[in-house]
């Protein structure tokens, strides 16, 4: 099957190089940009080698941008903080709600369970605005607009189906006899759940949690509709920042780098589980 002819080898080598170049170049380029000042960025032709500067990051972190036109307040660190709070809280809540439900769906065959599981699954593929737009009107009436709680609650739409379906698969893979054995050894249902089922599904729960975090972090449209400036996460904040700062390209690049670094690191850490998570548990890597 594998052609080891010279032409084949060269073809494979060239193809793989082009592929890596195409997919990695934007990340590398933006990373480099984030260490350049505007003069370096605007230089034509662009240079690969340059004197790196940390000024972009300093400006973002201090929240002060000094330009010829005057001082500009940058709230980007606030967005970063919001992303951390919103994503962590959403995942924590989703795990708290989702893991017991996933267990119920895996262990007890009951119609309501299937209905819930499939409703959540099918709404995973429904247009998010369909739910979000009416929800924004309800939120205005309930006073939930632009609150952390309100956003964390809608983030459940992202995190919960993921956790339910992945963790459910892990629970289904545990032999019920193992739990029965623990019950017969004199332990309550709750003890069997917390000391047998949950630890054994641990990798799945961790994977689902990490992936939910990534997806919550990367989400854009939910916060775009439901949050105003001081509650916005980085995805929405970065876009607003582009509009506000105009031509401060170095800072934009630095903001992008700060926005994507957490998820990329998490993804690298959890890469073993990504396939499973991305397919909602249907394909094992």
């Amino acid at each position, binding site marked *: *099957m594998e052609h080891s002819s010279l032409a084949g080898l060269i073809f494979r080598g060239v193809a*793989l190089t082009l*592929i*890596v170049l*195409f*997919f*990695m170049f*934007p*990340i590398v*380029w*933006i990373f480099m940009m984030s260490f350049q000042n505007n003069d370096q960025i*605007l230089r034509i032709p*662009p240079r690969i080698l340059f004197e790196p500067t940390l000024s972009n990051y300093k400006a973002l972190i201090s929240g002060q941008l000094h330009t010829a036109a005057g001082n500009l307040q940058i709230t980007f660190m606030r967005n970063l903080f919001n992303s951390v709070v919103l994503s962590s809280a959403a995942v924590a809540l989703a795990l708290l*709600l*989702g893991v017991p439900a996933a267990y*119920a769906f895996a262990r007890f065959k*009951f119609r*309501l369970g299937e209905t*819930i*599981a499939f*409703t*959540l699954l*099918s709404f995973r*593929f429904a*247009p*998010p*605005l*369909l739910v979000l*737009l009416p*929800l924004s*009107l309800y939120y205005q009436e309930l006073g939930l607009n632009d609150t952390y709680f309100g956003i964390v*609650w809608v983030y*459940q*739409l992202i995190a*919960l189906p993921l956790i*339910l379906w992945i963790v459910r*698969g892990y629970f289904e*893979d545990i032999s019920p006899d193992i739990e029965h054995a623990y019950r017969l050894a004199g332990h309550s249902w709750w003890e069997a759940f917390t000391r047998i089922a949950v630890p054994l599904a641990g990798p799945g729960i961790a994977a689902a949690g990490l992936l939910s975090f990534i997806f919550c972090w*990367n989400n*854009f*449209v939910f916060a775009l*509709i439901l949050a105003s400036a001081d509650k916005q996460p*980085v*995805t929405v904040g*970065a876009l607003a920042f582009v509009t506000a700062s105009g031509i401060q390209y170095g800072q*934009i*690049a630095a903001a992008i780098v700060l*926005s*994507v670094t957490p998820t*990329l690191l*998490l*993804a*690298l850490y959890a*890469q073993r589980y*990504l*396939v499973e998570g*991305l*397919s909602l548990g*249907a*394909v094992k890597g």
Partner: protein
Amino acid sequence: MSMVQLLQTNAQAAPARPKPRVRWLPYLLSLPALLICVAILVPFVTAAIYSLQRYRLNLPYLRGFIGLDNYIDFLSDPAFWNTLRISITYTVLTVVLELLLGLAIALLLRRPTRFHNAVSIMLLLPLMTAPAIAALMWKLMTNPSFGILSYLVSLFGVTDFKWASDPSTALFTVVLVDIWVYTPFIMILLLAGLRSLPRQPFEAAALDGVPATFVFFRITLPMLTPYIITASLFRLLDSIQQFDIIYAMTQGGPGDRLMVFQVQAYLEFFQYTNVGRSAALLMVLWLITNILSNIFIKNWLRLRARAHGHA
């Protein structure tokens, strides 16, 4: 033991007999998930109702039930047909190109060598980048004054290539970004599929000296089909609802060049405050995705059963 004795023993035991085993437990455990379901279904039904109303936020006194008028209006509305056309074009282009490219890459990385694994992990990074942020990255790279890509095409003599800000190249640009973000999705699923295929048919074919093209079209592709279908439907469903990339890149512009469903519905709601029309637009989109997702879930369940060893 006589019947009487039996009854007595039972009667004595009755008080000590613990309560019947908890049948409510599964319901208790899934209560939170049920609440989330309600939290989805209520706005969904609300949207369905809005779509049957004349409902403009700026003209609340005109609000009223108008039946299917919002939908009927679409039939004669060029903007709607434009939205439908752009959405379908965008979806078909992205899914087909990503599928071909993703399959090709998966085949290249098929053997699980350390180098191939390293490449496949690198390719995951675009997928893990927030699509809205990815659009910003490409916006920086395609900036007409300093963007590296603008510079690169100028080396080939193409000056004044305006990428997303030119109506003739806007679609190409956003499709490119979509390909950058989502090809790895197809790749990683198909790679997992390829690597899980049984070896025997391939070994037998190799022994018999079957030509590689024949092996690919008659063995590899058919065995990979469930993975291809699941991955494509996943992408199809996401792509027809694409919002983040297009909104972050051009907000539907230039003009109405990239007015896909959700961007159009968003602007309809927030810019023109026409809630009824926005909801009707989303209901049409939902109808399309619902049909697709039913097909998807069927295939997905089959793959899932395979992964969990109880087919």
